[in-house]
């Protein structure tokens, strides 16, 4: 079974196979150089559209059971190195002073969503209620999925952009976006923003978050 029967280039033959290949290489290069603008369209292609979020976000989870929020019951525990360990109901949180901010959202895996509007109490407001002890230097935010966690230094957590959002773009936070409560840290990559937050713990030293234990930078400042 050798190749004898196969003529090499005969009259009338054209090298089209390599042209298709090279066209794809060139096209990919042009498209890549063209930047992200061209790509918003991918998630809106037929077939794909029905299966991906239409708000520009991608869905990441590290556990197979997604916490659910019925719109009412979402006890938030604040504990650890505090004078006043407390459990706040969702209605307690809604009664606090609310912050309303618009920020670009950036994921370390290479996608971004411009001008996302978040609403909810500032984390500093919550810390004031629990009154951190002088020994507390960092704050951990745990997810109700029982797996995910991430942390901020006390100074970062108290910045006026850091909030616990219950609404996004003017509507109650969607389940996939982290309802009832999602941490928003606009000056850091998205992996700092724990979804489905149900516990805030104050610690003496900063804990290492879920992805950070798996190689991500603890310093998640946008660069």
């Amino acid at each position, binding site marked *: 079974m050798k190749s004898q029967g*196969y003529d090499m280039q005969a009259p009338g033959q054209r090298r*089209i196979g390599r042209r298709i290949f090279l066209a*794809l290489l060139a096209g990919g290069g042009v498209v890549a150089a063209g930047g992200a603008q061209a*790509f918003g369209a*991918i998630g809106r292609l037929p077939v794909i559209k029905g299966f991906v979020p239409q708000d520009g976000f991608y869905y990441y989870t590290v556990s197979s059971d997604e916490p659910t929020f019925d719109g009412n019951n979402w006890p938030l525990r604040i504990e650890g190195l505090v004078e006043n360990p407390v459990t706040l109901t969702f209605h307690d949180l809604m009664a606090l002073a609310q912050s309303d901010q618009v920020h670009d959202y950036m994921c370390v895996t290479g996608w971004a969503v411009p001008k996302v509007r978040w609403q909810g109490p500032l984390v500093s407001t919550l810390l004031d209620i629990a009154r951190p002890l002088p020994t507390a230097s960092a704050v951990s935010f745990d997810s109700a999925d029982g797996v995910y966690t991430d942390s901020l230094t006390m100074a970062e957590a108290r910045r006026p952009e850091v909030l616990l959002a219950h609404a996004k773009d003017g509507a109650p936070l969607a389940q996939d976006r982290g309802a009832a409560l999602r941490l928003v840290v606009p000056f850091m990559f998205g992996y700092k923003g724990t979804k489905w937050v149900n516990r805030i713990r104050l610690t003496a030293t900063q804990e290492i978050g879920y992805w950070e234990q798996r190689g991500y*930078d603890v310093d998640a400042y946008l660069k």
Partner: protein
Amino acid sequence: MTSTPISSSATAGSGAGPEPRVDRFDATERLFHWAFAVPFLVTLATGLALYFPELAKLAGNRELVRDIHRFAGLFTVLFPVLVLALGDRSNLRRDVTEVDLWSGDDRQWFRAWLWRKVGGKDRLPPQGRFNSGQKFNAALTAGCIFWLAVTGLIIFPGIHPPFWLVSNSRNLHDLAWIILTPAVIGHVFLAAIYPPTRPGLSGIITGKVPLAWLRHHHPLAPEAQSPAGD
């Protein structure tokens, strides 16, 4: 020993002798195909679970899915390269030439095939070892795999390129799989499911295909000319 003509057995129905089969792919070609296909399908499945929310929820452990995706992706390139390095490349080299060169009939076949999808009735000219749809699929796969491999390596862990580079690589990675996946689905459908074409599947498993099938679908292939040798 003089040859006796085989009179009726080749055309007889069931109950006759085994239908004649001829060589289609040699060991290196088959190994190359599967060294690519198996890790590729694992990469595709895990990739879909990283992309689509409902599959991500089903899978749950994103770290595990991600790691399988990374290593299967690496093997999708490494295994075929290994086969190329160690195998007998002569027939594969011929296949690449076949994919590259399109005769006038090939171009006519491709146009007629596309036209038939929208109700055209154009004649499909007889094809050689590969028809131009298969040639197109091979070139498309190679181009998409090139970009999937390059962009995949850029966003591989341990490397921390600037955000714009990660972002552009991710977008091109998405575009490449969105182009390639329908081609793969079409390929698997025609090779393993669609009744008129699936008898050729044995070619990539045992190396041999029914002579009658080859004569019908690839009448200009040299193996279709030779008498059945089994």
